[in-house]
């Protein structure tokens, strides 16, 4: 018989290394002769979209269009250390490092422009794409390329190196209390499943995922991460099993180590929750890992709602579900 159930999973997640471990993201921003802003950060793009989101943060902080930003990353001969692409920390930590460096570079660009354009303050200058214009007198302007030459004449280099240090405190060894992380990210997922009580097969029919992101730097990337995270969380709940036996991995290839296919994935409705974090770059927090976590408890709760069994060992295999259903029937 096929039975349906619904479940909810809610999580909070601390960004970064946490627990007092030094968490530093270095970043460098430089105006070059081609009039473009070069941003150097040792942040690794692993498919999550760091390259896009960090370029957007740099453009916003420097006040230029995205095509004026060149992000140099994953090259240790050119980039400072920005820490690992791990702990869901690149958007928040390296994003902050880049934001600070680019904001400072913008101020230095404006100072040179003030000299070159003859205004009394930098407030009177506006960046319009690759031109710096005097407010109220837009014909009086200088391009970023020309500004680079002016700076050279003045003997100035337009290069800023900055570091962002995340707030993190070691927890009390005795009590386990403290403030190990900042900031936290929150998420709640709801799913509906159908459980076949004969075979133990679970079909996830529908998922609604609400993810706090602080601010969505790139909503399409956020949705991509949410759906990918749901697939990984569902895989964790229902499929993935190394099959460790006396230290040996039995399921050592993808014919035995099962992950979901597109035919296993449900319809997913994504809800992006934006509540800007004041310490974050334009309010944006990392979601790399948070997007995965609520799927598993939501699915296990939905299985409980459908057939009244509690799964305490992952994955919730078809065999284990049938065993628990039979155990429950025998008790009654």
């Amino acid at each position, binding site marked *: 018989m096929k039975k349906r159930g619904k479940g909810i999973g809610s999580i909070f997640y601390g960004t970064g290394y946490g627990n007092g471990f030094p968490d530093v993201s270095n970043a460098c921003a430089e105006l070059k002769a081609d009039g473009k802003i070069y941003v150097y950060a040792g942040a690794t793009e692993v498919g999550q979209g760091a390259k896009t989101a960090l370029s957007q943060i740099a453009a916003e902080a420097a006040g230029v269009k995205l095509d004026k930003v060149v992000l140099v990353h994953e090259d240790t001969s050119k980039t400072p250390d920005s820490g690992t692409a791990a702990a869901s920390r690149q958007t928040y930590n390296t994003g902050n490092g880049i934001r600070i460096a680019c904001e400072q570079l913008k101020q230095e660009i404006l100072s040179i422009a003030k000299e070159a354009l003859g205004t009394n303050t930098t407030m009177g200058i506006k960046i319009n794409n690759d031109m710096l214009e005097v407010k109220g007198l837009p014909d009086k302007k200088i391009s970023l390329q020309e500004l680079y030459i002016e700076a050279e004449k003045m003997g100035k280099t337009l290069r800023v190196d900055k570091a962002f240090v995340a707030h993190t405190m070691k927890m009390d060894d005795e009590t386990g209390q403290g403030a190990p992380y900042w900031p936290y990210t929150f998420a709640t997922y709801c799913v509906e499943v159908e459980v*076949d*009580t*004969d*075979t*133990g*097969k679970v*079909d996830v029919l529908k998922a609604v995922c609400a993810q706090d992101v602080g601010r969505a730097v790139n909503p399409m990337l956020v949705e991509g991460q949410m759906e990918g995270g749901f697939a990984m969380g569902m895989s964790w709940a229902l*499929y993935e099993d190394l099959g460790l036996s006396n230290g040996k991995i039995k399921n050592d290839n993808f*014919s035995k180590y*099962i992950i*979901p*296919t*597109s*035919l*296993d994935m449900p319809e997913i409705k994504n809800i992006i929750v934006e509540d800007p974090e004041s310490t974050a770059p334009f309010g944006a927090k990392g979601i790399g890992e948070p997007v995965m976590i609520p799927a598993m408890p939501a699915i296990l709760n939905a299985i409980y709602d459908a057939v009244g069994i509690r799964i305490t060992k992952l994955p919730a295999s*078809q*065999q284990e579900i*049938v*065993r628990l259903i*039979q155990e429950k029937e025998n008790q009654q």
Partner: protein
Amino acid sequence: MNIRVFSPAVLDEALNCLQQPEGQVLAGGTDLIIELRKEKRKPQYIVDISNIKELKSIELGEEKIRLGAMVTFADIINNEYIKNSIPSLWEAAYNMGACQIQNKATIGGNICNAAPAADSIPVFLSLAAQCEIKSASGSRLVPVSEVVLGSGKNCLKADELLTAVIFDIPRTNEVFAFSKLGKRNALAISTISCAVRIYCIDGIIKEADICTGSLGSKAEREYNIQSYMLNKKMGTLDINEAADILSAEVEERLKARSSITYKKAAVKGVIKEALQKCINRYHEVQCKGCESNE
């Protein structure tokens, strides 16, 4: 590894090649190539039959269908007649492996490789298919039930080649279904599979073939559920009771195995799905009949 490969373009030449000892037939290669890489098999020479055109055809006769041994799963999936008239065979092909495997894997290879989880074998069993087996010295017809002997074992002699699978053209009021259970909805090896063929006269089940895969070392015909179903009314068939009978039959056969606790329960879900599909298809046939009468 030094293996000689023959790639004959005509069948007689392939049969001649097979007269030498220590040879191995290569069809789609989806199993053999992996075993060669792992050095599980070390043949002296390989007879590649993939260039033999006469083994690749699907022939619809007056009474029989003849599938050449090199007909691929993709050929079956793309065949409209099989899709509409023998959906059990179509469903087995469609749900087997990935697209790339479907393009290369052949029905002859699937039968001869004789894996317990091979999806086409329960279907061919339920169709009471005959295998055409040829050698340089002659030809014989053997029921598929006698070709597959156990896990990885078939009845072919070293100089023989399976050349075709032959079975009856479906009649009116004959319905088919195939269901399988795997660890996910695509690209899954069958944990359990069931092929069903039912023939009715005046709404009464007169012939029932229920064949399962992955329940033991080879696909099996399940006699108890078949006799249970005979002479029952198709419209009021109790699929739960039928599933219980199959479950008991499977338990009796596999009682020594640790997997039986799960499989005796799960087989019910698989057979119920297959029987329900048959019942739905039978109703469709009846409804079409009504419309054409009006």
